[in-house]
């Protein structure tokens, strides 16, 4: 395939040739002939490459691979198929030359654009001996959650002057998943007021079997002697027993807003990024507490993960969160109407949204509150992200900030625990703020 350089030289030669004839200038004809000879020699015998004509990557592939590249193959191995945001992935690319001729190749393993090469290089110039193979190792840093794919491998071979080249894409793909990163939470201040039949680690502020002290009461027949508080008996002269706060498994519902408006802001700093990270952190915390956690992600459609417990549930939730894409504009009311019949009355609900572009938010959250659900709203502010990225001016920011504060105040007046989550605030701080601590 002709490179731009060879095309330019070819055009120059033709122009000089014709001009030479027109001007009857044999020098021009001679120069044109030399350029033609130069190009012909490179095209016929320059089968091996060194540097790209542009010194840049093989971004434009035309599919003209030629014979020289038919004997080159590639395999790839990833260190892991699942990692967390800001995690590192080691990629090993194995290049094989099945031919008996050595080849000088330009190899570029395509990685998603959001990835950063931390160690090594995915763009290599190499001489691959006859029937030899070589391993290329590099490490990428994955700053953003999502489903990703590494590949294809672009291979290029060209003459030393970069006049002609052949390119091939080896369709070797490896998929991997980047989970949202999680913050370690010590306390969330979220507890269920409704007992469930299975005992667990969460106290629900009702007397029953549990570990935390709840109150003292008089002894009744049948009470365990171990529960008698002897100090209180000594003080009052009556047999008193300790009552404990009932432990129970809570149902925690986390709702993540992934409408298209949730991605307002820079790619790495927007409401959806913050919401998914918060949802992952909360899910891990609650599941660690042996709660039953369900997640609803809504945007273009309502995607839900049924309540369940355990480590497996965490992976299911993380996978759904990794795949959350900002799309669609389903109102919260639709989500609430759909899930209300299926969740236990009084269950804590954590709603993660920037509260933008949805007129039904107030009514939807009122519906929750009316049924005595414990609603916590963490709202990453798109305004702050946009303002930090200098995409809105000060006046616009102030106006919209005021409107946002009005909305937050209105929701707070409904009994919703709400916190305007500023970009630099830790999740635990935001949660504590929402719960009034």
């Amino acid at each position: 395939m002709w490179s731009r350089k060879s095309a330019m030289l070819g055009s120059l030669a033709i122009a000089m040739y014709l001009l030479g004839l027109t001007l009857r200038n044999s020098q021009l004809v001679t120069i044109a002939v030399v350029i033609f000879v130069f190009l012909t020699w490179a095209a016929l015998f320059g089968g091996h490459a060194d540097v790209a004509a542009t010194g840049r990557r093989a971004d434009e592939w035309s599919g003209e691979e030629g014979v020289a590249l038919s004997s080159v193959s590639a395999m790839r191995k990833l260190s892991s198929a699942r990692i967390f945001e800001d995690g590192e992935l080691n990629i090993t690319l194995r290049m094989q030359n099945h031919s008996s001729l050595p080849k000088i190749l330009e190899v570029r393993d395509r990685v998603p654009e959001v990835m950063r090469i931390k160690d090594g290089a995915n763009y290599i110039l190499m001489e691959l001996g006859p029937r030899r193979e070589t391993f290329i190792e590099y490490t990428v840093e994955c700053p953003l959650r999502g489903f990703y794919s590494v590949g294809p491998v672009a291979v290029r071979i060209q003459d030393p002057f970069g006049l002609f080249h052949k390119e091939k894409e080896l369709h070797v793909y490896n998929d991997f998943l980047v989970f949202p990163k999680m913050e370690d939470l010590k306390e969330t201040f979220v507890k269920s007021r409704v007992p469930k039949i299975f005992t667990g680690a969460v106290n629900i502020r009702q007397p029953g079997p549990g570990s935390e002290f709840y109150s003292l009461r008089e002894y009744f027949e049948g009470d365990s002697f171990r529960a008698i508080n002897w100090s209180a008996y000594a003080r009052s002269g009556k047999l008193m027993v300790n009552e404990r706060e009932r432990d129970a498994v809570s149902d925690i519902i986390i709702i993540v807003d992934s409408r298209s408006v949730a991605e307002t802001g820079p790619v790495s700093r927007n409401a959806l990024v913050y919401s998914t990270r918060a949802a992952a952190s909360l899910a891990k915390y609650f599941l660690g507490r042996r709660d039953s956690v369900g997640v609803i992600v809504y945007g273009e459609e309502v995607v839900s993960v049924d309540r369940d417990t355990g480590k497996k549930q965490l992976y299911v939730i993380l996978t759904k969160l990794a795949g959350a894409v900002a799309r669609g504009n389903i109102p919260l009311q639709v989500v609430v109407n759909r899930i209300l019949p299926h969740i236990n009355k009084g269950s804590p609900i954590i709603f993660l949204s920037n509260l933008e572009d949805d007129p039904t938010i107030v009514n939807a959250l009122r519906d929750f509150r009316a049924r005595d659900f414990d609603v916590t709203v963490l709202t990453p502010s798109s305004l702050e992200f946009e303002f930090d990225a200098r995409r809105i001016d000060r006046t616009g920011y102030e106006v919209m900030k005021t409107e946002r504060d009005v909305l937050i105040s209105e929701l707070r007046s409904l009994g919703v625990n709400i916190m305007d989550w500023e970009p630099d605030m830790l999740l635990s701080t935001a949660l504590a703020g929402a719960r009034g601590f």
Partner: protein
Amino acid sequence: MTVSRPSSDTSHLYDGKTVRSSAPSRKKAAGQIGSGSDIPTDAIPQVEIPSFIESLLGGPLVPKTKFLPPDKMVQNLQLGVYGILVALALLTYMISPAEGTMWYMFTGSLTIATVFQLILIVGATGTGFWGTFQRDGRFLLVSNLLFILAILRFASSKVTLSNDVLQLQDNPFMLSALVVVYAVMLIMYFELTNGVLRYSMLDTSIRTNEVYVMNPKKIVGKYHRSLLINPIIATILATIVLSANTILPWFVGILSQDTALRMEESVELISVYGVALGTFFVFCVVGGLFALNLPTHLQNYREKRAE
């Protein structure tokens, strides 16, 4: 947030509804919020796709990232360019006398045309030097264009020299050899300046860990070999192609000595049109070979022979 996209205006959703939480301006603002899931333009990493001129030069016309100080390879290439540049300047001066130049046609004065021609050559050399030293594609492009401009002459078919210190004017073969050498030097000048930029970029990419090069000595060695072999081959082949006026009579001479002699002395054959015609036939043959996909067959043959 302030991106205005008429197609994604959602303000109609608010029609007839009470937006309790918001001031009236919010309705408009919310309606204008972009609802696409596209990545904002300022968040997309920049992909460097070279322009046509950049491809020709081998590097950026206006360097955005500064090259790191040149390594030994680049320094050697720069020295090579300086050497070729001096030779090219002298040869250009020799084979492009002021007669027949555009300046001569416009001004009608040989002195002015000579001064213009000299300025052109000195300008081409100076910008070439500076461009190579600074590794700046803009100066190199100007230099290339000035050299091409210097050779554009409304001349007769016969090659004339402005300064015949080597007494070549009476030796047609040496004269055409000189022109071939000049042409090869011009191409090598293009290639070496291109190489300076290419290898500067490559060196910078290697040192910034963007590219990894396995066994760089072999790769550089291949380039060095090509820098030596290709001009020699180009010189030989071009000389053969341009000697059609002597080669053709030699073949004809096998059949008829008289016809061969007439051909040798024929003005048509030694004229620029004769040379051009011979060249045209040669390249028709080469073009035919390409049309038959000869490079692929050749590569196939080499692969099979190596099996």
